[in-house]
């Protein structure tokens, strides 16, 4: 799932719940809506449980942009 789709997924999920709450769906439609809803919950949850983040720092390497891991010692309370 693309990152910018997360918000849309949550919105769609809320829409599905509201539609089901109105209770005017046929059984088949209810099942379909439920299925779609659960799928979205799984996708969103998965997105939130992805691997730990990377913290990097941009450096210039002979005129090119390069990344190095962010030096953790910078975060010590020294200034």
């Amino acid at each position: 799932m693309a990152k910018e789709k997360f918000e849309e997924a949550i919105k769609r999920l809320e829409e599905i719940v509201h539609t089901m709450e109105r209770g005017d769906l046929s059984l088949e439609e209810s099942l379909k809506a439920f299925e779609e809803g659960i799928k979205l919950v799984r996708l969103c949850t998965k997105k939130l449980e992805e691997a730990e983040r990377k913290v990097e720092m941009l450096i210039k390497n002979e005129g090119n942009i390069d990344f190095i891991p962010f030096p953790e010692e910078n975060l010590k309370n020294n200034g």
Partner: protein
Amino acid sequence: MKDVWTVSELNEDIKNLFYEHYGFLWVEGEVSDLRRPSSGHFYFYLKDENSRIRAVIFRGTNSLSPFAFELEDGMHITCRARLTVYSPRGEYQLIIDRVEPVGIGALKKAYEQLKAKLEAEGFFDAARKKPIPFLPNRIGVVTSPTGAVIRDILNITARRCPTVNIVVAPVRVQGWEAPGEIVEAIENMNKIGVDVIILARGGGSFEDLYPFNTEEVARAIFASSIPIVSAIGHETDYTISDFVADLRAPTPSAAAELVVPSREDLINTLQSLKRRLINLLRKEMDRRLLQTIDLERRLRHPREVIEVYKSRLQSLERQIHRWLLYQIRGFNREVDHLSQRLKTASPSNLTDKYKTQVQLLKKEICAIMKNYLAKSKEQLTLEEQKLGTLNPFSILGRGYSVAVKMPEEWIIRDSKTVSQGDEIRVILHKGRLLARVAKVE
């Protein structure tokens, strides 16, 4: 040493002496006699209470200053310069390459000047602001790589959502080099393609925040195709960068919270939505199940249903039959009655009736008329007889006569009304006499 110098040689030597002795130097003073000819260079005097020195800023040099301000007469500045000799005139002057207004007043002035200029250019328009993504994948942080700001941002983003990646572009946030580094960092972030940029700096004096009030940084923020959240200084500080940025956070910590949603909240929201979905489906299934049970209970064998309907149908048929008979009888009676009434009311009946009546009346009228005529005749005869007796002349037949005074022709009733000799007429039964009164007796 030479015995005799040419003027050029001397000026050249002095120039070298100046360079060697002073190198780059910082001078403070007030701007006076400022001129800017079409060449675009600035010429003025830098002066204090007792003294002045020629100064020049070559065109384009002023953009090296981190301050977007216009030089004005009377402005108090600090400048970095080299002292040199203008050989054609043998005058020494300062060639200035960096200028900084002195004092908060001048800084504020530059700030207001730039703010007005960029506002007029539409840099602060709400319509130009880009939306901040809901859940970014990677955040660019442009700030000092050390200190509380980056530490807070990294801590808060880690706490809120440890799956969001961070790229830090280390920059100086103060001093001469700061604006250029910040501009380059924003450009690099656009090159590597992060989802959102946090531009942050901790608190400091108005002068400390100055890189964020420069035109070049403002333009870099405006040019960025990636949304930028600014968090510069304390909550009460508003820099030009804050106005240009797509979103202003009061502090760097707040910026981190604005940019990264809380994973816990999101998971709770998702779990709650999931629970509601499951409950809804369960409820729906329960409802359907109950409906089925109910339908099953109400479902009977078709024959049984048919029998019920059959007997009901028969009963209805009987009822309808009875009802129809009753109705027909009723109608018959009604028809009889109406036809009777119709006969009586028939127009032919009426004609006959009127005919009879007319004849009857005719007869009656004839009788009445006859009767009346007879009676009238009788009456008339009677009246005639009566009249006959009353007619004064009819009695004449019995031998009476009437005397009339002449010529007045009134009937004489009294002898005293005539005199002897008067002419009188005597009317007889038959014929008349003209006489004269002989004597009144």
